[in-house]
């Protein structure tokens, strides 16, 4: 049954229906509404047999999740941005230990400059931490992905991060269906840990391993994610059969059959992108879009399958790898290796800058005209950049870029421009 709900509330309810036994989190915008709602559900007794631990940091949140998961409890946490990076060391540890923790990343930019708005810098920075990373295109998918995430994590004994765009999704109200307890119980069996701290069968978890076995252990982590390339679609398919809607999977192709130009993107921008594709298709332009739902594991073959026929692929990235440009696009280029498909990296929507239909139309027009460079920054104010570079050219102490640029844009009320 669909109800008007905020994305965060719906996700919290969905997580609660997955019957987590330990929820541990530390507040950070824009994740807060999810964990606030979960603590309310636990305190009111609606969520039973669940310990909510208000930890002192994200580092501790993930550490508590590790202890809980290794003791055989279903563990959940949520974070974003600085919080995700503050748990970096523990994220690698959780995946190395093979603990099926589920975490929401309410995607947000990473400072400095400090910025609470949406982009994917946080989860992309944790690209190689060994977690499965799933990206929700909309709030219904965010709800559904959490339910699927516990299934995937526990079946493969590997942690799963569900990424949903901060504010754009977490704080948006829309009619959403949160599956009932019975439905979720029917889909998600109880957690059967692969390794557990049990006095009746004592084992040592997390001990040191030398060069004799380290490569093999790491290889197995990789092999498990490759296995997930088969398993994620199976879970999505089973979900579709039971719940009557398509959610998740590895990727979603939107009108990309026969498209000459295909835009690849992750997260909520897919909504706007689909509209633009529709408008251009109406004009007879052969464009399409592909939503990457799983970024880790990366669906190389599947992507090659949907992109192989295109002439041009544009990877729209909400994160920037300073010093090279794209993050997702490096992987997309690997998928396209050997094919004569032209690939472009477009950095867009950093720190919450809206990716508008108008900008996307302009971008595609530029691409269709053969004028899109290999690396492009969407809506970059080059005039502002020029002036700031001019100001800093003579050395001295021009001060922080962020301040000077805001003054330049006359967004700061007072002070010399």
């Amino acid at each position, binding site marked *: 049954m669909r109800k008007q709900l905020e994305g965060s509330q719906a996700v919290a309810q969905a997580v609660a229906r997955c019957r987590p036994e330990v929820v541990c989190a530390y507040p950070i915008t824009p994740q807060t509404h999810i964990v606030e709602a979960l603590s309310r559900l636990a305190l009111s007794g609606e969520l039973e047999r669940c310990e909510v631990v208000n*930890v002192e940091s994200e580092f501790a949140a993930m550490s508590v999740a*590790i202890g809980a998961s290794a*003791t055989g409890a279903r563990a959940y946490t949520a974070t974003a941005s600085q919080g995700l990076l503050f748990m970096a*060391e523990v994220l690698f540890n959780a995946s190395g230990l093979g603990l099926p923790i589920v975490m929401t990343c309410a995607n947000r930019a990473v400072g400095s400059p400090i910025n609470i708005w949406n982009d994917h810098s946080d989860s992309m920075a944790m690209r190689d931490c060994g977690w499965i990373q799933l990206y929700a295109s909309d709030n219904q998918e965010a709800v559904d992905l959490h339910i699927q995430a516990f299934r995937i994590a526990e079946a493969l004994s590997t942690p799963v991060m569900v990424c949903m765009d901060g504010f754009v999704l977490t704080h948006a109200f829309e009619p959403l269906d949160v599956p009932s307890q019975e439905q979720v119980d029917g889909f998600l069996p109880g957690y059967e840990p692969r390794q557990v701290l049990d*006095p009746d069968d004592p084992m040592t978890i997390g001990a040191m391993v030398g060069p004799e076995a380290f490569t093999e252990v790491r290889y197995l982590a990789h092999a498990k994610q490759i296995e997930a390339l088969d398993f994620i679609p199976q879970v999505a398919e089973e979900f579709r059969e039971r719940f009557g809607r398509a959610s998740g999977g590895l990727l979603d192709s939107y009108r990309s059959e026969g498209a000459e130009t295909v835009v690849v993107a992750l997260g909520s921008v897919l909504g706007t992108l689909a509209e633009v594709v529709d408008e251009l298709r109406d004009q007879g332009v052969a464009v399409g879009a592909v939503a990457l739902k799983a970024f880790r594991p990366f669906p190389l073959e599947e992507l090659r399958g949907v992109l192989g026929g295109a002439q041009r692929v544009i990877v729209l990235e909400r994160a920037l790898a300073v010093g090279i440009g794209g993050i997702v696009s490096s992987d997309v280029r690997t998928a396209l290796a050997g094919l004569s498909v032209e690939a472009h990296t477009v950095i867009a929507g950093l720190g919450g800058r809206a990716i508008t239909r108008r900008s996307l139309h302009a971008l595609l027009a530029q691409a269709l005209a053969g004028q899109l460079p290999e690396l492009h920054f969407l809506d970059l104010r080059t005039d502002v950049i020029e002036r700031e570079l001019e100001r800093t050219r003579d050395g001295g102490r021009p001060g922080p870029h962020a301040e000077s640029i805001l003054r330049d844009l006359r967004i700061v009320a007072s002070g010399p421009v």
Partner: protein
Amino acid sequence: MSTPLPFYQTGTFAVGGRLLDEDDRAVQSDPERSNAITKGHRACQGCGEALGARVVLDAALRAADGRLVAANATGCLEVFSTPYPESSWRLPWIHSLFANAPAVATGVAAALRAKGRTDIRVVGQGGDGGTVDIGFACLSGMFERGDDVLYVCYDNQGYMNTGVQRSGATPPAARTATTEPLGGHSGNSFGQGKSAPLIAMAHEIPYVATATVADLRDLEQKVTRAMSFHGPRYIHVLVPCPLGWGSATGETILIARLAKESGLFPVFEAVEGRITSVARIRHKVAVEEYLRRQKRFAHLFAGDGRPDVLARLQTLANRNIERYGLLDDADEPTDIGLLDALATSERGPV
């Protein structure tokens, strides 16, 4: 300690065990005692940490009826006792990272609570670096929330596992790899100190104690006592490190005892934030007695020596003696030459 000992038996380390009631005798002297750590671990000879951890975990296991889970921080203890496939521990054990043992222990405790498993208890542990430095936020959070975890810090006063660097628990004037007595410096600087036990007490947690490996019976009893409480508990054990301290491998116990007898390491216990008992100094020694036996302080005695630095260290000891009432004992046992006995003894019980 329950029964005041009438005297020490000279030349033995049994500390009057046979004169005590059965219940009060050191379990460690019982040939039938349990042993949580099997042979074959890789600690240095005379390692105080290996001894301390064995005694602590044995006592905790006994108190928990064998139903115990340990979460351990990276450090010497982890590295010398667990490398796969030769883990020496006979209890469920998890090592995650250097800084997060208290939080991992919290997670274990939370899971057990959610599952209604009241029969299983949890111990978290780490070295002084893992505890008083990098893991301090996790430890304080665990205390403040009231999580049901006994946390034990094995204090060897430095980052030993990485090659003896200075930690927040390294004493003033000690030489470490990062506090060499060079350029007129006399080893580690004199700061205001960082007493993890006192900070633990400030959290008003149910139980805090300090102990040394010189008095294993006291250590056992403190662990047993700690296990009788629920909620966060903290035990800080001084564990000499022959390698890092430059001490003779056979003198670990002696040195731990001198740390206590000099007043440099006060041994006490506190319930709910108030000190309830103090192990009195039995035979007061000058700090020199303690320092001389360790190469990490050798620069204080080289050439003309550094009487100024020794005086400052003595002041620290005196301050402890006064603050904790370490000498103020009406029933002070008769001194029959404890130190002579210890110093001349050939072998220790390690």
